[in-house]
């Protein structure tokens, strides 16, 4: 097929700076929405995903499989588990068994301060660092038992809606009518733990007047999930249920799937309005060139060649907008913290989100140019040559 030079499409972009800006802006808006939606869904998914090679099993109260915070199991479960389940991971004589309390609590920065800062506290023992190897103390130290000390995650301030400096080492948070000094910062990237407050298990039990545990987390070695599951079924007196950690987080992901779907639908609807705006601009741009299109046909250029050139021009403008939106996303959106009921997750502008944005940009260019191009080429040549 005889084609118009690519240069023609490139130079046509410069005909009207205003229209070019509108086309690029429209495409950038569409791509930004798509990238943001993808980054939101990806970030949320990551925070609710545990490493696929995780061999952790969570022991919860029967009937509380949906929420660890609602679960209450006896203090003796860890010792029963160690005694009853063989094949739990062990190093230097320490079994990878972590008794934990997970509790949503309202705290404040000062005594008598009416502010209500909602956060999630996790009461732990030193074995918690064994079963959660992704946790790393990045500043300070772990809190000591009996000293009213706590340790905060690197995104805890985001979850609480306060500045990072409010949770600096040496600062305190008030709950149970007393201050709890922050002695350390930790991180557990890509997990909900990143936005939690950790403290010694017994301190939290006392502060909350709760002698029971929320759960016990085991890391398996030679044992398999079925062994743990069978054990919980033989110990009906303990009223336990075993869930693999990966399945627990998978169920959380299923729970949040409608939210993710809504994000996509909202983004799609907004992107559609951006696309329609872009269409309007392209209609105006191409209809102003109807006579030129007629002239090109009179020279002998087939309609397909002109259509291709219009497509190239539109895709070029849309791709420029897409690239700008992707760069903007990397610089300004990637890592932005978003609060949700499970804690905080960070928008993740990864290669998948970027690819989705670029594909959306190219599609915007293609879809946006087809109706105005067809309208422009639909006219018979004599009528096109008379166009004003």
């Amino acid at each position, binding site marked *: 097929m005889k084609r118009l030079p690519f240069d023609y499409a490139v130079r046509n972009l410069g005909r009207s700076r205003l229209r070019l800006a509108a086309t690029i802006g429209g495409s950038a808006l569409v791509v930004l929405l798509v990238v943001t939606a993808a980054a939101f869904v990806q970030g949320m998914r990551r925070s609710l995903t545990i490493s696929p090679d995780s061999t952790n099993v969570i022991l919860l109260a029967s009937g509380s499989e949906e929420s660890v915070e609602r679960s209450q199991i006896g203090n003796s479960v860890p010792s029963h588990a160690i005694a009853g389940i063989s094949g739990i991971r062990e190093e230097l004589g320490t079994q990878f068994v972590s008794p934990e309390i997970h509790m949503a609590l309202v705290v404040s920065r000062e005594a008598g301060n009416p502010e209500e800062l909602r956060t999630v506290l996790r009461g732990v023992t030193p074995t918690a660092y064994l079963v959660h190897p992704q946790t790393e103390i990045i500043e300070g130290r772990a809190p000591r038992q009996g000293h009213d000390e706590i340790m905060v995650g690197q995104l805890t301030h985001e979850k609480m809606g306060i500045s990072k400096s409010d949770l600096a080492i040496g600062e305190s948070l008030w709950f149970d009518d007393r201050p709890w000094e922050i002695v350390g910062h930790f991180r557990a990237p890509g997990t909900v733990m990143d936005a939690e407050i950790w403290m010694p298990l017994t301190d939290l039990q006392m502060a909350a007047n709760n002698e029971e545990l929320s759960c016990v987390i085991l890391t398996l070695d030679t044992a398999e999930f079925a062994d743990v599951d069978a054990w919980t079924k033989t110990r009906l007196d303990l009223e336990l249920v075993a869930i693999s950690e990966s399945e627990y987080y998978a169920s959380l992901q299923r729970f949040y799937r409608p939210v993710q779907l809504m994000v996509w639908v909202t983004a799609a609807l907004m992107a559609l309005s951006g696309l329609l705006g872009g269409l309007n601009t392209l209609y105006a741009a191409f209809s102003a060139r109807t006579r030129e299109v007629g002239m090109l046909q009179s020279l002998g250029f087939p309609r397909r060649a002109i259509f291709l050139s219009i497509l190239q021009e539109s895709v070029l403008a849309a791709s420029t907008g897409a690239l700008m939106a992707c760069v903007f996303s990397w610089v300004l959106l990637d890592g932005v913290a978003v609060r949700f009921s499970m804690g905080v997750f960070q928008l993740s502008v990864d290669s998948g989100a970027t690819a989705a944005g670029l594909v959306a940009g190219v599609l915007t260019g293609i879809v946006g140019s087809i109706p105005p191009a067809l309208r422009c080429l639909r006219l018979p040549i*004599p009528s096109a*040559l008379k166009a004003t």
Partner: protein
Amino acid sequence: MAFIECRNLTRTYTRGTNAITPLDDLDLDIEEGMFLSLMGPSGSGKTTLLNLIAGIDRPTSGSLTIDGHNIANSSKSELAAWRSEYIGYIFQLYNLVPVLTAYENVELPLLLHGLTRKERHRKVSAALDLVGIADRHDHYPRQLSGGQEQRVAIARAIVTDPRIIVADEPTGDLDKSSARAILDLMQSINRDLGRTLIMVTHDPHAAEWAQKTLHLEKGRLVEQDVPQSTTAGAT
């Protein structure tokens, strides 16, 4: 057989329930190498006839044979290919591409001919030289006067060395002296290159440059003028 032969040539347009027939059962022969002007009031069918000969429109009935081929039955894509070989079109409003230089505008039709860059350069330079605008080859249309733009448009029309050059009111948008220069140029192209030139015009002075003038009214041929100094070729 004449180079261009129209037999019972009719073109009817339908707009809603109304049928308009700007060209009605026209018989016409045009010999190769003729400079012919078409005159007539608005709606007389002169531009319709020009467009049919140029292959950018198709007749409703009748035959239109050019160089032995009845183009009335050609498909759109066949016509497009045929136009690129046989037709050079000069428009009243020049229709230059504003984002291309004079050189690139003239080069456009050559892109349909599979020539090398070097061959294209030779032809474009020759065409620009012929119309006397070689020194403005790198100018954009907005940097040229109306007369200069029309010269570029003429260069674009002749660059592929077409057998027929059609011109629709080529001087309609120009001042007197520019119009005269353009008509002079067209006449020399007809005379020196031997190309068939068909021009639609409202201006009787412009028509005087042609070898023959046909008057159309309501889609029919009503009169033929042959200036003393020219040779008639139409029947």
